[in-house]
């Protein structure tokens, strides 16, 4: 009840009296493990990156995650490695050795880069270094060239490498948790942190604590905790609910559990849904995708969330579950108003279903200031099927950043349906699309630009589709 235990750099630790809102980063630094740094406290800079051991077949793998967005209580029963755990005495880890040649200047971001790079170093089946692994780390000094050189210089871990040997063994089994630190002068309010082991358990806890905060990857909630000081007397960690972990490919649909991390979904899909394959690298960073889930991204219902435009284009639906049973809701009916959803009290997202067969032609466009790890100004997912005569047989257009919720462009779809895929119909459709939404001005882009993008992205899609179907 009053304690949590986990493994830190190979050592078992027991912790008591810690506020359940405490992040792993804050706790590590209090312990004097100051290698992990705070650069932004919102999962943008990666200076806080730590390695989380996760199950992988019969063994385990290391995933780099943002220590600033990971609650210490959610570590219970897990194994975490920090930059301090990589070197063996005076002998540097190969990743650290590689970074010596100009990879650091001020050095503040360096531990985070080392951690992200180490995760990729140990990725099983790695042929060459995937720079995506470093997409969640910012460096203000080097300009990245020497870091890239360091990454590309890495070989394979030697056989006797202690971490590689650790990864041959399974990750610790994570059990349910009911943590509530005792009330003290510095912790004046009763607080609880639950980790249910099943949906049944979850519903029981929810029945007792109806206003409890549900936390999946925490990549949104902990930003609120860090930056707007949101606090919840009761938090429920959904990260280990087996019912939210489904991954299945049936004849009718592909189902991805709401609690599956985006990285895991990406690995499992192996490019089988081209629209998602194109989309994954544009969703935040590897550090975030290692924690973030579809359930979380949809549940927060942000109008600029990245998953709705593609999932709308894929015609996805959501399986919602509560103590009284399950129901399926089409994603296009899920968002009801700004940050409002069709979720009823006591209900949560269990899985996303993508209907099969997929529409054969698709594309994802994200207009943002920075190609990597940025929030979209406008995002568009399109999926389409053309007939043998070149007419539009089916089309779905999902949009983000142009209204108070993610939206389908029904009017535009209707304008294109049955029309030949040629300049004249596209010209009309682009006008319809520009008139269909009234985007707003903000620091990411002007309303005029967003409106222009609506028409232009459709045009861009047109110019990028082959004239005649192969």
């Amino acid at each position, binding site marked *: 009840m009053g304690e949590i235990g986990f493994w830190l750099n190979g050592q078992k630790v027991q912790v008591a009296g810690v506020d359940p809102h405490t992040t792993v980063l804050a706790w590590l630094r209090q312990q004097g493990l100051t290698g992990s740094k705070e650069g932004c406290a919102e999962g943008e800079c990666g200076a806080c990156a730590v390695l989380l051991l996760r199950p992988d077949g019969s063994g385990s793998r290391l995933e780099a995650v943002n220590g600033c967005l990971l609650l210490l209580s959610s570590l219970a029963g897990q194994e975490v490695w920090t930059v301090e755990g990589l070197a063996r005495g005076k002998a540097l880890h190969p990743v650290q050795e590689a970074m010596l040649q*100009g990879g650091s200047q001020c050095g503040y971001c360096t531990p985070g880069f080392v951690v992200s790079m180490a995760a990729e170093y140990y990725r099983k089946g790695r042929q060459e270094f995937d720079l995506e692994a470093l997409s969640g780390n*910012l460096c203000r000094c080097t300009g990245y060239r020497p870091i890239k050189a360091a990454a590309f210089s890495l070989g394979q871990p030697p056989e006797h490498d202690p971490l590689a040997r650790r990864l041959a063994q399974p990750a610790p089994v994570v059990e349910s948790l009911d943590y509530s630190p005792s009330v003290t002068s*510095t912790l004046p309010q009763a607080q609880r942190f639950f980790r249910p082991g099943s949906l049944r358990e979850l519903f029981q806890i929810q029945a007792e604590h109806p206003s409890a905060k549900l936390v999946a990857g925490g990549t949104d909630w902990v930003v609120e905790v860090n930056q707007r000081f949101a606090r919840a007397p009761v938090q429920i960690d959904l990260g280990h609910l087996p019912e939210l972990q489904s991954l299945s490919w049936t004849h009718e649909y592909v189902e991805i559990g709401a609690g599956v991390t985006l990285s895991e979904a990406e690995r499992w899909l192996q490019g089988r849904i081209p629209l998602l394959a194109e989309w994954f690298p544009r969703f935040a960073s590897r550090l975030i995708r290692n924690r973030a889930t579809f359930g979380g991204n949809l549940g927060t219902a942000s109008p600029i969330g990245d998953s709705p435009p593609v999932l709308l284009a894929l015609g996805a639906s959501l399986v919602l579950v509560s103590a009284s049973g399950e129901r399926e809701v089409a994603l296009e009916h899920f968002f009801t108003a700004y940050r409002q959803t069709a979720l009823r009290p006591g209900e949560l997202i269990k899985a996303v279903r993508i209907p099969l067969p997929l529409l054969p032609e698709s594309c994802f466009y994200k207009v943002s200031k920075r*190609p990597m790890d940025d929030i979209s100004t406008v995002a568009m997912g399109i999926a389409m099927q053309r007939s043998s005569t070149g007419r539009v047989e089916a089309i779905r257009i999902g949009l983000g950043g142009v209204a108070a919720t993610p939206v389908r462009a029904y009017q535009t779809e209707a304008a294109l349906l049955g029309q030949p895929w040629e300049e004249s119909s596209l010209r009309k459709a682009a006008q319809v699309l520009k008139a269909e939404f009234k985007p707003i001005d903000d620091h990411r882009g002007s309303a005029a630009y967003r409106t222009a993008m609506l028409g232009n992205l459709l045009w861009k899609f047109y110019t990028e589709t082959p004239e005649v179907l192969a």
Partner: protein
Amino acid sequence: MKAVGKAIPHESAREHVTGRALYTDDLLPRYPQALHAWPVQAPHAHARILRLDTTPAYAVPGVVRVLSASDVPGLNDTGLKQDEPLFPTEVMYYGQAVCWVLAETEEAARLGAAQVALEYQPLPAILSIWQAIQQGSFQGATLHARRGNPEQALAASPRVLEGELELGGQEHFYLETHAALAVLDEADHLLVHASTQHPSETQEIVAQVLGLPRNRVTVQCVRMGGGFGGKEVQANPYAAVAALGAYLTRRPVRVRLNRLQDITLAGKRHPFYARWKVGFSEDGLLHALQMELYSDGGWSQDLSEPVLARAVCHADNAYYIPHMDVKGRVCKTHKTSQTAFRGFGGPQGMVFIEEVMDRVARSLGLPPEVVRERNFYRAEGTGHRAEESHILKPGAQSPEPVPHSTTHYGQVVKDVERIRLIWDELKASADFERRRLEVARYNDQNPHRKRGLAITPVKFGISFNLTAFNQAGALVLVYQDGSVQVNHGGTEMGQGLHTKMMQVAAQTLGVLLESIRLMPTRTDKVPNTSATAASTGADLNGGAVRDACEKIKARLAGVAAQKLGVHPADVVFEDGQVWSLWKPEERLGFVEVVRAAYAQRVQLFADGFYRTPGLHWDKTRMWGKPFHYFAFGAAVSEVEVDGFTGQYRLRRVDILHDVGDSLSPLVDLGQVEGGFIQGMGWLTLEDLRWDAKGQVATRTASSYKLPSFSELPEVFNVRLLPRATEPGVVYGSKAVGEPPLMLAISVREALRDAVAAFGRGGIVELASPATPEAVYWAIEKVRERILVSGD
């Protein structure tokens, strides 16, 4: 083996990669009794404080003390110009700290801060350069540099263009936010750990606020997690808060801004606005330029005036403009106090003149690189056109050579031929002419995507504009075992200064690098130091370290000469060994000589001092020789732009940059690459915005985007100019911190070149930063012109 010029890793690289390198706030676990500070930030851009009641804060468990104006024993001001009250009575910008709460935990301090009762009377705020100009809201002097008779020359010019451009600010976004930790000892002496580029000034300000003599305050900076100018003066208020708290409570006090506080409290690169009138001839040769510069200085004077002075002094970049008049003013607005940022006004001045060059070229239908090279500074009496080389002045007997290498503030550009040398070499190595054709071919074939190519030069003056700052000190200690401690006044913020100083000390003393230990910068080791700024860190401190080492070596040479039976001038120190030119095979160990020196009561430590020679500057006339020398460079950038969205990618960058004889090639390469990317960030994606209330709108890492891996050019070739010895600077080296930032102007110009390809010639207006949206609107403008002209 030479220690200087060797490509070695950063002196702290092993500590960086293992996480053992400590930064100011990493020292906190050593002080479990420390109190945590949290600011109360005002929700108005401009307001009078009618009431401030701190008592409710004390009701929060853990709150120990609230610091406000009445607690200040000395002067309630953290500026050198006395316009920066630490605890203000009038709020001057949105988010300004009005008081600070100290508590047992950060959480308690935050909750306490939320309870402080405040009443404000909002006042009208000035939130833009435009409003400031309209209302005459300026601060500091009008700066004015002038040569020749621009009015007359403009009237006589075959062509005249007028133009204007606004440049956005830039958030420093050092990864380590502002931090300070103050500890009061039993003798009432304050030790302040601070993330500061200027420990001596931090010491001065702490002493000023506490009303103490400076010998009661020691400031130490272990290292910084980046500074970029943002910690040149702006570290001072946070050190003062920590010091005041420690002084009053007798407990260690820690201040560490979170990112939100750092962005909302601290100053940024100055936004600028310029308008100009330029006269030129059909071949693109500039005759005259009038330019007015306005910078947005924010609420206090800070470093705005010297920043503006550097902008005025760099409005020529690499170009000789016979008649020139540049005026500048600092606007006073209700925003954060804009401050030093790598380049220090130079980048803004240079972007403006490059803007002029491009517009002149496109108005004539000439390639911009041709207009640029025709206008370069060049040796006296040479020129693009023969009649330009010499002029007959009225009343003179014979024609005089045109002073083609003299700037508009009277300084002769030393090594002027390097501008052209670098330019030509880079054009060749980057295959510029062939790629021009390739880009044109690509653009002909692709209606929706266009490529752009540009080359731009850099000429950047090295030295503080204010002559007095160009001095430095060092203290070098040799112990009996031959190990060496080096202290100098410069701070380490990632730029590799300590690495270079190690190399200078090892080289001068003739010992191995491993024998040298660089000490954290402390004001009780070297006093009255200058800021580590203006790229001068290695020049100044290197001069001082070398001076100290030379003194020690001279004494040791006497000792060794006796042992070797030669004249001291013939003694050689290298790699930890000592020998004479006459008998190189007879070798003494450095340690042996040191021990002998100790036995003979020879002093084994020395101070060193350096002052830059030959500088003079008439501030009111803006005339003289403010710079010791110039750093040169050039960059070629190629981009590809999507016509639907304005999104782009950087395909290739080639850089040739002059660092003299590099003290430390790996460090210098890092400075060039990193400076380039940071400059590119400023000119492309870093879009700093304020909202209508005067609050920074882009105050988080998720709304203010720095360059990431995706901005790294696909091909990135960086070379340092070989055989570039700079006589009169430590080991022939040149400063490198700031100049490469301006190589990024080539990216802006390449984007403009790509935008131009969507149209049919003529001037291309491109806003800055050139975000995808800005590029898109620029494309729309050139497309509209096609429609209007009916093509």
